[in-house]
């Protein structure tokens, strides 16, 4: 326990302040080619007549398209048995602005840009959808052949569903139904280091991949799958990330650079421009959340119905995982015994969305905490007391039936009240994670929440 309470120097601190930290873009390997992408100029279109011949005729230029990818479609969660829906490079459709179509490597950055400039394709534009709520509608234009809903949760369910207790009974018993709709927007991670990768074909037949990835083994698996190579042909070097925040969990550059290194036989380096980072890299998802709570006049939440739409952008990537986490947390830090939750991963023509700091949970925390305040406002009761009353306690269960053994909601809210000087009545001040004030518990919640006498 030497580190607890001590000022432990960062192991990389001195290197950071002396210019000795080697980020991926700082690696210098002679003969390295620059990489640039030919990307979709439209949000949604059928694509035909992709022509890279003029680029390929340029001196020292190498080009890859979908035809060069041994396994074109492989999903970020395919290793978990989740079907792939995204081609590494667009084949005959593009579904978001900036989707990669052809990738070039050339001796200089300028030559790579010139090669991209002479690649052409025809695009037949289709209506594009940017609002997850509109994309959810049954009569919305269909972005994927199987529709706008991701349909591959367990047992091929088209939604993440949670049922707990008897929600209809809870709504019958309620004094009031409190409803709210919450729609946090997309956020770009905007790391100061843009996506960057260097791949070196080694004499022993291996590829060495220097990557800014936050998820090295994910990236390794994704590259190996697309290239149809055993893992022992790849050496992935990572660990130095110039800001990620979740945006470098996706395998954005490594696979395409690996293919170009194979094809050219030369080291290649791809550093996204700031414009690419903003336009083409993944973002935190926009969400659409509708909450209806059955509440009593004195502030007990008897039941919750919730609809969540998770905007995955054009492809699902990690979204089913994010929505699953979201669903487990949809009561926030509170115990609500009767639940009906339906969550959907919905495709739009936005850039595919991904992890960002608290993937799936920050959205639901925003919604549930705002909703708690809304309930308090509608009932005219103290928002701290409403939260303390409904706070999860030892022995309560989460939406997915995990028993809470050490919930921290009560001490956290008490500490916040102290910090901001909010006065609480002695009854609430005396609350603990174990104790639920029995006198207040309405009869229809007895047996549904943890026994107040149990602790």
């Amino acid at each position, binding site marked *: 326990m030497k580190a607890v309470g001590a000022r432990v120097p960062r192991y990389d*601190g001195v290197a950071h302040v002396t*210019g000795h930290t*080697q980020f991926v*873009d700082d690696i210098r390997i002679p003969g390295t080619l620059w990489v640039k992408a030919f990307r979709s100029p439209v949000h949604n279109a059928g694509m035909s007549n992709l022509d890279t011949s003029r680029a390929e005729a340029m001196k020292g230029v190498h080009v890859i398209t979908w035809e060069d990818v041994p396994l074109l479609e492989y999903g970020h969660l395919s290793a978990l048995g989740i079907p792939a829906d995204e081609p590494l490079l667009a084949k005959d459709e593009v579904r978001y602005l900036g989707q990669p179509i052809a990738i070039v490597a050339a001796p200089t950055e300028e030559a790579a840009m010139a090669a991209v400039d002479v690649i052409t394709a025809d695009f037949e534009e289709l209506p594009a959808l940017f609002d997850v709520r509109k994309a959810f509608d049954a009569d919305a234009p269909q972005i994927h052949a199987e529709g706008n809903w991701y349909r591959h949760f367990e047992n091929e369910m088209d939604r993440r569903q949670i049922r707990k207790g008897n929600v209809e009974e809870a709504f019958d018993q309620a004094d009031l139904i409190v409803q709210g709709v919450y729609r946090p927007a997309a956020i770009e991670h905007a790391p*100061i280091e843009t996506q960057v990768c260097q791949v070196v074909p080694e004499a022993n037949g291996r590829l060495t991949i220097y990557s800014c990835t936050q998820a090295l083994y994910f990236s390794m698996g994704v590259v190996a799958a697309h290239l149809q190579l055993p893992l022992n042909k790849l050496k992935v070097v990572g660990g130095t990330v110039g800001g990620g925040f979740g945006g470098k969990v996706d395998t954005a550059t490594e696979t395409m650079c690996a293919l170009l290194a194979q094809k050219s036989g030369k080291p290649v380096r791809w550093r996204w421009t700031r414009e690419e980072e903003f336009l083409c890299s993944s973002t935190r998802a926009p969400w659409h959340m509708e909450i209806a709570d059955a509440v009593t006049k004195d502030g007990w939440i008897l039941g919750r119905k919730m609809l969540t739409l998770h905007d995955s952008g054009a492809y699902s990537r990690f979204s089913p995982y994010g929505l699953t986490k979201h669903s487990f947390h949809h009561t926030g830090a509170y115990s609500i015994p009767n639940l009906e939750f339906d969550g959907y991963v919905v495709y739009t023509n936005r850039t595919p969305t991904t992890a960002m700091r608290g993937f799936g949970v920050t959205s639901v925390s925003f919604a549930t905490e705002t909703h708690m305040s809304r309930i308090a406002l509608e009932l005219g009761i103290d928002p701290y007391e409403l939260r303390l009353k409904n706070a999860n306690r030892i022995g309560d269960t989460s939406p997915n039936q995990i028993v809470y053994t050490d919930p921290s909601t009560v001490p956290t809210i008490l500490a916040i009240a102290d910090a901001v000087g909010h006065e609480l009545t002695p009854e609430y001040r005396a609350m603990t994670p174990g104790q639920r004030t029995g006198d207040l518990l309405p009869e229809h919640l007895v047996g549904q929440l943890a026994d107040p006498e149990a602790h």
Partner: protein
Amino acid sequence: MNLTVNGVETTVESGALTSLLDVLREELGITSPKAGCEAGGCGACTVLVDGEPRRSCLTPVAAVDGAAITTVEGLGSPENMAPIQQAFTHHYAAQCGFCTSGMMMAAQAYIDRGGSDDHEEIQEALGGHVCRCTGYVKIIDAVAATVRGESFDATVTAAGTAMTNLGGVA
């Protein structure tokens, strides 16, 4: 063209309109200035040109022919760090480290021109520098500490044991 980079006279082969950033990083192999946006917006490429902070990504090398360029490598080495470098490590002002070089060069210029430890003035001086990790508080603390002449031994913690690698803390 010629540059004096961190005290060393250097001949530059790159074209006249090549950015100073590319000359430093790609031709001379000095990689502490970073290509964060290459549009003058983030500050990660900042170096000192004759003592003044400049966005090297927007500076054609021909415009600084004959100038003295200072980068983080010229402030101090791991064995002999400058006060601003010590303060950045001590205050955990570098998290991912990517904006750190530009941030420190702007801070050094501010200190060199007699800036105070007033937090608002430091904010003003670092205003064009984007850090996505720290929230800036620790960076401003580090600059203020340097202005006040505080110095730190970056290898010794409050626990009294030299620990240079978290892996050693068991």
